Every structure is written in C-alpha cells, then in structure tokens.
C-alpha cells in the first residue's frame, strides 16, 4: 500500500527510523537480559565466590554433580514440587468454579470480580505479614478451625509443624492468586457464544451436565493456559517463604529453590553453585512453557 506512495529511498529511510525507535530498548536488553543469561550459564561451570579476590576456577559440570548429590538441593526440589502441586490444582479448580458462578449471576458480577482480584494487588510481603499474624497460635486460623471442628483451645501449629507450615504457604498463595485466575476464566467464558447455552437449555440439559459436556470442553484452552501460568508462578515463589522463615517458621520444609538460591548466593557467597541452581530452575520452567506451547497448538477449539 505504502509502496505506491513512496519511492524505495523513502521506504529505506523509514526502515532506519524503525531501528532508531528500538535501539534504546535493545541496548538495555542486551546488557540486562541477553548477557546475564549466558553469563549465568558460564558462571555455573566455575567455582566462584562472591567478594573473593581469587580468580574463579573452571570445574566443568562439578556444580551440577554436587547439586544432584546434595540432599539439601533435593529437599528444595521436593519443597518446590509439593508447593506447586498443592497450590495450583486447588487454584485452577476453585477459580473455574468461581468464574462459572459469577457469570451465572445477573447482579453483583462487578463486585465479586473486584473483591476476588484485590489480593493480587497487595505486595507479597504485606500478604505474608498479614497471614503470619493469622497463623499465630492465638490467631484467627486456630479460632476458625476450632470453631468449625468444635475443638476449643487446640493449637494446630500452623507455622511450627513441618507439614502445617507447607499447607500455610499454599493457603497464602491460593488466597492471593485465586481471584487473578478467576478473571482469566471469566474472559474465556465470555468468549463462548451465548447461543450454545441457550440451545442446550432448550434441549433440557441441566446446569451440571451442561457445564461438564459443553462449557468445560470449550474452556479447555483457557484451562490449560491457567494451569501453566499458575504452575510457573508457583515455581517462582519466594516472598512468602522468605518472610515466614524470617518470622520464625522452620526453614527446611519450605526451603523452595528460590529461597535456597538466595541463601546460597548471598549468605554463603557461592555464586557458581547458585548459578547452576538457577539454570536447573530455568530448565524446569522451560519444560512447562514448552508443554503450554504444545498444548495450546493442538487444542484449538472452534465454536
């Protein structure tokens, strides 16, 4: 279209402006994104200490071998996997239910959307601080659970027991992000044509069957998107675990990879080892991103 109006010379000049516009960002990207990735990969092959004057020593894959044989690192993998599975599955199920319930209401849709989304706006440190008090032995969580179970005066050790502290971190994360994913499901639901529901209703399909055989299959792409997004989010969790351990909770049960990474790099100054850890985390996340890509390609739905 533009070719008719402008001569090739002007087209060329225009293309140069394209480079001018992207140049500043590209410079920052090169320095603060592209370079660090390769640097992380490179550093993971060295024995390197932070603040050390000794030159780093090339040790090949020794850092990775060390990690594979380290019970501490396996514990971190376990903590991360348990946290991720324990958080994202309830999160996907509940956000799906909430979105379906919200869209079935004629009134207060906006209110519920806002209310459910609001925790995602708070900073994670604030969230962790609030829940630290709720999980206090004298706090709300014990009061509520004892009220429901009718077991007055029992301390459920939300932050002290190694299993409970894991459940507590999951609950915090669930609370913060369930509304966020509800919103994504709502967008997916809104894109399903109303006529499909109406046709089903006429055919005498009840609400439950309608959801199970019509809505849910059509929502499959959104469900996959939400699953992977929430999974990736959970794999990166840091703030809750960090503040809980700072607040006195035991480290070992909730020593997720990111927390371990932070301690290895900043407390122990073992930069090479921490880099190897970060590369492993990256590979795990890359695997799930690839899975998402594959799933979203093969599962196109047409209405």
């Amino acid at each position, binding site marked *: 279209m533009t070719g008719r109006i402008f001569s090739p010379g002007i087209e060329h000049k225009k293309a140069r402006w394209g480079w001018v516009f992207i140049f500043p960002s590209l410079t920052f990207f090169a320095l603060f994104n592209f370079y660090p990735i390769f640097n992380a990969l490179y550093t993971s092959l060295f024995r390197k200490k932070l603040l050390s004057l000794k030159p780093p020593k090339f040790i090949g894959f020794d850092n990775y071998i060390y990690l594979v044989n380290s019970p501490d690192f396996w514990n971190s993998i376990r903590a991360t996997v348990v946290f991720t599975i324990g958080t994202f599955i309830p999160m996907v199920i509940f956000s799906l239910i909430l979105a379906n319930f919200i869209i079935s209401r004629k009134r207060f849709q906006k209110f519920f959307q806002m209310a459910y989304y609001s925790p995602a706006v708070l900073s994670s440190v604030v969230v962790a601080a609030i829940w630290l008090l709720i999980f206090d032995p004298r706090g*709300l969580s014990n009061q509520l659970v004892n009220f429901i179970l009718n077991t007055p005066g029992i301390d459920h050790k939300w932050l002290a027991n190694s299993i409970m502290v894991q459940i507590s971190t999951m609950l915090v994360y669930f609370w913060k992000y369930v509304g966020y994913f509800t919103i994504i499901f709502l967008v997916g639901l809104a894109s399903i044509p109303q006529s499909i529901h109406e046709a089903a*209703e006429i055919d005498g399909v009840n609400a439950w069957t309608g959801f199970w055989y019509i809505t849910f299959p059509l929502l499959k792409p959104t469900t996959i998107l939400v699953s992977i997004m929430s999974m990736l989010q959970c794999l990166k969790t840091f703030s809750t675990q960090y503040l809980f351990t700072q607040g006195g909770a035991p480290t070992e049960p909730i020593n997720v990879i990111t927390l371990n990474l932070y301690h290895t790099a900043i407390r122990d100054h073992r930069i090479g080892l921490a880099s190897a850890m970060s590369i492993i985390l990256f590979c795990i996340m890359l695997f799930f991103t690839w899975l998402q890509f594959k799933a979203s390609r093969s599962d196109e739905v047409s209405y």
Partner: protein
Amino acid sequence: MKIAMVMLHHLKGKKKKTSAQSFITDLFIWAFLIMAALFILGPFVFMFTASSMPANDIMKMPYRWIPKGFYWQNYWQGIRGNDGSFIYLRNILNSLIVASTVTLTTVILSALTGFGLAKYHFKGRYFVFMMILATMMIPFEVIMIPLYLIITKLGFQNSYQGLISPFLVNAFGIFLMRQYYITFPDEILDAARIDGASEPMIFRKIILPNSVPAIATLAVLTFKSQWDNLLWPLLVAQSEEMKTIPLYIVRFTAEKHTDEGAMMAVAAIASIPILILFLKLSKYFIGGATVFSVRKG
C-alpha cells in the same frame, strides 16, 4: 436459523423456572460466592482493624472485628521505627522514586519499541521481536546473580541506579504495546507523512495520544510489580537509607513481631496507595490480567 433462534428465545421466556431444585441451586451459588468473598476480604479487614488496636486486643479470642477506637500509636510506632529513626518515611520515598521512574521509562521505551516493531518493515524485525519475547520465559531468579555482578561492576550498588536499571524496559511491555499498535491504521500514519510530519513527531503527536488504554494498563502493572519487588532490593540495597518498603516490612517483622498492631499499621501504610490506585483504575488492572488470554495479531 435466525428465525429458529428467535423462536427459541420466546420459548425460553415462557418456560420460567419455578422448581424448588433450581431455587436451592441458586441459594447454594450465592452462599458459595459470599463465603469466598468473606474468605478473600477477611484478611483485608483484619489488617485494617488490627492496625487500629493495641497489641493485647489483637490476639484476644474471639477476635473483635470492630475496634473500640482508633489506636493511632500503632501508626506512630510503625513510622517512627523501633530505633526512632523514622527511616520508614525514607523507604516509602525510595519505593515511590523507584516505582515511578521504572514506570515512566518502561512506558516510554515499550511504546517506542512496540511502535518500531509494529509499523516499520525493516529487516530482522521479526527476529528482534522473537528474541525479546524469548526473554519473557526467563525468570528473574535466573539472571539475578549475573545482574548483581554487573551492577557491582558499574558501581551502582546501594544506589537508585542499581535499584532501577535492570527494570528500565521489559518484554511484557513491548509485547503489549506492539500488539496494540499492530492494528493501528497505516493510512493515518501515511497521511501525516504526506503532511510533512517527521517520524518522531508522528510518534509523539499521533501514536502516544492514541494509546492511552494500553499505556495505562502497562503503567499500573509496572508500578504494582515494582511496589511489590522484594528479591532485587534485598540484593542491592544494603544501607537502611536505600531500602524500599518491602525490606522495611521484613525487618520490622523479623525484629519485632510481638508488636502486632504496629506491624499491621506498617502493612496498611504500604497497601493504601496501591489499593487506591486499584479502586480508581480497576479496569486497567483487570485488563492487564487478561492480556495473555486474548489472542490477537
């Protein structure tokens, strides 16, 4: 087909549901939604009520959801700090400086880059876009240590430059702006060129004023994520004067988590600006959440 639909509509109107079963289903849905809302909003109410009670009252059973009065000493204690240095005020200022600067540069650079990638047909632009998109897959935790070494080498440790520079621009912003600009009509740009407008002028006078919704979405999301940032300041800000709000909360919690009232006051102060922003601009927050679920371009 259309006639059939209209007929269906009429049929539906007549067949009103009156059965007891649908009433119970309805009741159940309302109950579920309200319970979920209580679960979600409860901790908010807890934060604000606890911040206005003396510490002794907070841990009383059962919890008193309506405070007797406003115990302002919590806020005073939170701002004053345990050592009376009032460092929280400085930390709030730091958070404001860092979050606003990052928001400003991200918006400008993302708009520029997004425009450049969407509307200029230079060689390699697709490759550049893919490279930038690829960095979205890399979690910050992976590049954090190399970044720390770069910042140290540049002498930016414990400074605003250090806190800000890794976040000057991000892939998500560029992606968002490019998707927005790709549907912008070329004819308008060409018309401006014929009128003798230079390319920077087109960007400033036509593109920027026409991308307010996308810019607002990007701005609130960037501001929020910086306000929330814990990991990077934890590495870079060593002195109390350079710390940001999340670091102050961590320190306050670790030092003195027996003074629950003051702790919640500190948390409330940190949350109020972002909650106001959310209430005023909720559609941009919520719109930002759904960027990835809408496939376009």
